């Protein structure tokens, strides 16, 4: 690597420096926009004792769920879990620590972490189990709780395109937590479908500026679908689902 060139050529190099007991922030929502190959590499390395920060924890044989069988995850901070059997088993047996966090609070904790804001007040969770042990304060007649920011030793991110400087563009709802995660890793590693030359991305269209990104690698992706829902091909006037 030279200058601002962030491109690395192997997954081993991409996660160089990841060691046991670190905190890893992972982008993705369900199985959409997850860093599949970086997760595979964490599995291969056998890194353990990890604290994972991710909206979900994958399924049994795909996504972050593949880190469960060898007990690589010590703790997960997530908003919605339990889409896989091994996760349930470890959680019920007390082998896996789970900190359930409201989705918007989780997003904001990561955003704040990346933006140098140590904590923020939110009305989300007031009067619920989420508020237990947290400072409460009233602003303009309404109660709020203090939530602390999250910073990761590593962030693993999936983007659509990057240039060699690590400027990123995401695609559709695969964006989700990825741009936030990218800002909040001490080392941010991004895998993408395509790496282009510097200057090829329109600066107006860049979602994440390269300053947040340390390493970029090009991968190939399975992009597994969790809930395949389709409609018949006949024209329909429905505005929504079903």
């Amino acid at each position, binding site marked *: 690597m030279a200058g601002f060139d962030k491109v690395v050529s192997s997954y081993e190099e991409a996660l160089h420096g990841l060691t046991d007991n670190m905190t890893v922030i992972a982008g993705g*929502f*369900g*199985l*959409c*926009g997850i860093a599949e190959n970086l997760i595979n590499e964490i599995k291969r390395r056998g890194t353990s004792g990890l604290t994972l920060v991710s*909206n979900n924890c994958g399924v049994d044989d795909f996504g972050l769920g593949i880190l469960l069988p060898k007990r690589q995850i010590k703790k997960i901070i*997530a*908003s*919605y*879990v*339990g889409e896989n059997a091994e996760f*349930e088993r470890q*959680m019920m047996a007390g082998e896996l620590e*789970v900190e*359930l966090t*409201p*989705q*918007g*609070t*989780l*997003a*904001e904790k990561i*955003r704040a972490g990346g933006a140098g804001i140590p904590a923020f007040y*939110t*009305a*989300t*969770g*007031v*009067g*619920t*189990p*989420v508020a237990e042990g947290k400072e409460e304060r009233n602003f303009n007649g309404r109660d709020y709780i203090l939530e602390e920011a999250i910073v990761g030793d590593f962030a693993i991110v999936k983007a*659509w395109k990057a240039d060699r400087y690590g400027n990123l563009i*995401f695609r*559709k*709802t*695969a*964006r*989700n*937590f990825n*741009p*936030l995660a990218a800002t909040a890793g001490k080392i941010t590693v991004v895998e993408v479908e395509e790496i282009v030359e510097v200057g090829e991305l329109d600066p107006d269209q860049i*979602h994440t500026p390269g300053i947040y990104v340390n390493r970029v690698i090009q991968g190939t992706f399975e*992009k*597994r*679908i*969790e*809930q*395949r*829902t*389709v*409609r*018949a*091909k006949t024209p*329909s006037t*429905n*505005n*929504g*689902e*079903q």
Partner: protein
Amino acid sequence: MALSREQIAQRVAQELKDGYYVNLGIGIPTLVANFVPNGIEVMLQSENGLLGMGEFPTDDEIDADLINAGKQTVTMATGASVFDSAESFAMIRGGHVDLTVLGAFEVDVQGNIASYMIPGKLIKGMGGAMDLVAGADNIIVTMTHASKHGVSKLLKQCSLPLTGKGCIKKVLTDLAYLEIKAGKFHLVERAPGVSVEEIIKLTEGELVINGDVPEMSF
């Protein structure tokens, strides 16, 4: 007759107004999209980062990068936009969504809602529900009025851990449409063929009935 899931959704849809941005939860709330009244435009927000959710894709339109908050493959309506999760919840928490519809296990006379956790059973998490109930002013809760065993879910005080405190003002059950005001349920409408007496019997929290309660019309 108690309302079917579709009828509950159909009654909720009558509350939609032209130009509303709406977040629909998983389950019955999702069905509301099928009953948008003719002549009005609404835009559906999906908290994973999509404003302007369209219908399900055809087989050849399926895109793994385009899902809704229920992780189902969807399409984008004309005029849609996509954004990250912090932006999505800025919309929600900041009160920019005009109507939120979500399900619940219990609600009570104080406007408390319990919808995400039954202690002792598997805990899957609150997802975006706590942000949605804290951020929205206009929320409709859809639920069954009582359990299969006739135990009321409209309570003096929620027994399950709360999703939100004092945030619910409107409840649509399979038996009735109710508002919550000043620590009481107020019966606004009843399902066709359901008597006021039946609703009283299945409502544990204090229930106010003013004069003749009209039946819902569809």
